[in-house]
């Protein structure tokens, strides 16, 4: 029997050796199972869900930190299905930190808290999504990539439609799930073509690059574009952005803040790993340039016309995606630190803005920017935080957003001899100026406009206010001492 499978003992040895690299993921799997089974017995015990999720995430984080110090070189594990390297672990840790920040936010969101079935199911979806995010960041193979993307997609459909007993949410959920499955079907067809053209689904090694050179320009460009379309959907880059404003507007604010950060970090982490394998031809770069320019222009210009605060932030998120995509025309070696810093700063500021908006929504019931008039007199602390955070998102010194944008621009200027880079930079500068107009609409209404209404606050969600202030201080500190993030 064994003669027929000469590789089997070697494969098993490889798998056994690889198990130790995935401790963080195993903890998440165990935590997920504990939560979903324990919830059957401890019905609606909110504390159990919180403790289980918190403990799982912390333990997984400890394993990741230990791995970070242990692993120096990149290794392929599980017969080339996954890759383990310090970069991968850094992206995983960033995702984990973002999840931990979002965790108290989920518990403060009144729309999730009032759900008749309780919040524990939501937490189990969150843990499952975390596994998907980790697998996507580490994937070295198109099969793993597809599984990771699908795990994230399915978890996020459920998160957006979690409150589907409300009409608007059910509607946004349906749009999201239909767009999402079409995008992943297109990506799948691209993957099947890549497999046919190159004969391999391993991203590493030279086989795929050689295969693309062999089949010619048209075939390789069609298949790569279809693959990137699926990833572009998860990044909510133009022209795959249709779901973003609707889903952001009606989904619970905490879910939106999580979905605007964590999946983006994972997909950017993956793109960072796969970029050298696709950059051989022109296709990848041209796709990135077109999508980045379109995202920056459409995101920032459409944001000007929004009155719903969450919708405005969703369009600005599309703009930020385009800004980060810009980096991917550079060679892989130059962008890691810049990309990581920008992602971290963007995620923290975005989550803090959503927390402030959620605080306002919980206390006053306001969602439109025009309703924010003269709120600055009532909640000056939140107002000041919003000013700092929005200035950081725009990129005004001394906030962290300025350092991030400065790093991106200086990395791009080094490669200015390509003509496309010049156009990218011009669009980036112009749209940054445009973004000032819509971001500063919120502080303008907060502090400068007068209002006759005298709203009575509901006095709740003090924790959200505290978290917003803490995150704002983090953004300020990172702006003044950007080295803090590079230390680990």
């Amino acid at each position, binding site marked *: 029997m064994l003669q027929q499978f000469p590789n089997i003992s070697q494969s098993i040895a490889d798998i056994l050796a690889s198990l130790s690299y995935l401790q963080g993921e195993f903890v998440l799997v165990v935590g997920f199972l504990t939560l979903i089974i324990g919830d059957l017995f401890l019905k609606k015990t909110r504390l159990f869900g919180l403790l289980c999720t918190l403990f799982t995430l912390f333990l997984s984080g400890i394993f990741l930190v230990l791995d970070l110090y242990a692993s120096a070189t990149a290794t392929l594990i599980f017969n080339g299905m996954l890759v383990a390297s310090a970069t991968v672990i850094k992206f995983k840790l960033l995702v984990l930190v973002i999840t931990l920040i979002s965790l108290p936010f989920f518990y403060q969101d009144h729309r999730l808290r009032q759900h008749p079935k309780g919040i524990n199911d939501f937490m189990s979806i969150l843990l499952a999504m975390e596994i998907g995010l980790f697998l996507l960041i580490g994937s070295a193979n198109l*099969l793993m990539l*597809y*599984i990771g993307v*699908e795990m994230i*997609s*399915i978890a996020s*459909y*459920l998160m957006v*439609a979690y409150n*589907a*007993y*409300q*009409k*608007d949410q*059910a*509607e*946004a*959920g*349906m*749009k999201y*799930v*239909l767009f*999402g*499955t*079409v995008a*992943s*079907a*297109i990506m*799948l*067809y691209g*993957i*099947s*073509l890549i*497999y*046919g053209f190159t*004969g*391999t*689904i391993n991203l590493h090694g030279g086989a795929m690059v050689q295969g693309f050179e062999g089949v010619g320009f048209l075939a390789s460009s069609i298949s790569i574009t279809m693959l990137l379309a699926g990833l572009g959907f998860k990044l909510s880059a133009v022209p795959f952005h249709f779901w973003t*404003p*609707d889903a952001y*507007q*009606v989904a619970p604010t905490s879910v939106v803040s999580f979905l605007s950060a964590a999946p983006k970090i994972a997909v950017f982490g993956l793109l960072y790993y796969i970029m050298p394998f696709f950059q051989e031809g022109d296709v990848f770069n041209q796709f990135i340039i077109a999508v980045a320019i379109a995202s920056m222009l459409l995101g920032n210009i459409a944001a000007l*016309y*929004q009155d719903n605060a969450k*919708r405005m932030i969703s369009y600005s998120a599309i703009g930020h995606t385009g800004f980060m995509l810009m980096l991917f025309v550079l060679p892989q070696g130059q962008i890691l630190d810049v990309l990581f810093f920008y992602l971290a700063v963007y995620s923290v500021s975005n989550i803090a803005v959503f927390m402030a908006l959620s605080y306002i929504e919980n206390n006053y019931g306001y969602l439109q920017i025009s309703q924010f008039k003269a709120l600055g007199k009532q909640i000056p602390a939140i107002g000041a935080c919003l000013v700092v955070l929005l200035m950081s998102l725009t990129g005004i010194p001394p906030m962290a957003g300025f350092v991030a944008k400065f790093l991106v621009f200086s990395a791009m200027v080094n490669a200015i001899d390509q003509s496309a880079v010049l156009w990218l930079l011009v669009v980036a500068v112009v749209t940054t100026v445009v973004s000032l107009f819509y971001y500063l609409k919120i502080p303008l209404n907060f502090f400068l406009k007068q209002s006759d209404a005298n709203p009575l606050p509901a006095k709740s969600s003090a924790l959200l206010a505290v978290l917003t202030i803490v995150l704002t201080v983090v953004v300020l500190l990172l702006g003044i001492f950007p080295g803090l993030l590079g230390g680990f």
Partner: protein
Amino acid sequence: MITLQHFLLISAALFALGLYGVITRRNAIQILMGIELMINASILNMVAFSKFDRAENTGQVFGLFIIILAAVAVAVALVIIMNLYKRVQTIDPSKTKSLKG
């Protein structure tokens, strides 16, 4: 003799039909059927290409994974669509107009 070209032509036709269905249909369930056609096109591609990959059988394994994940995605989509139908008594995406912009 059925060659690779025949398989590829059929799968391309399936994919195009599915995409056409997704774009033109006015019913969420019919859109899902179009999506299912698109996914099946890529399974067919995978298995057809796998003929030339006898040693590893990557395509066949990939096909199995696609079948499972497609079933999961469609189950989730159906749950969400059913929930919407209970609220608004329609599953026509163009008739649910409370979200705009």
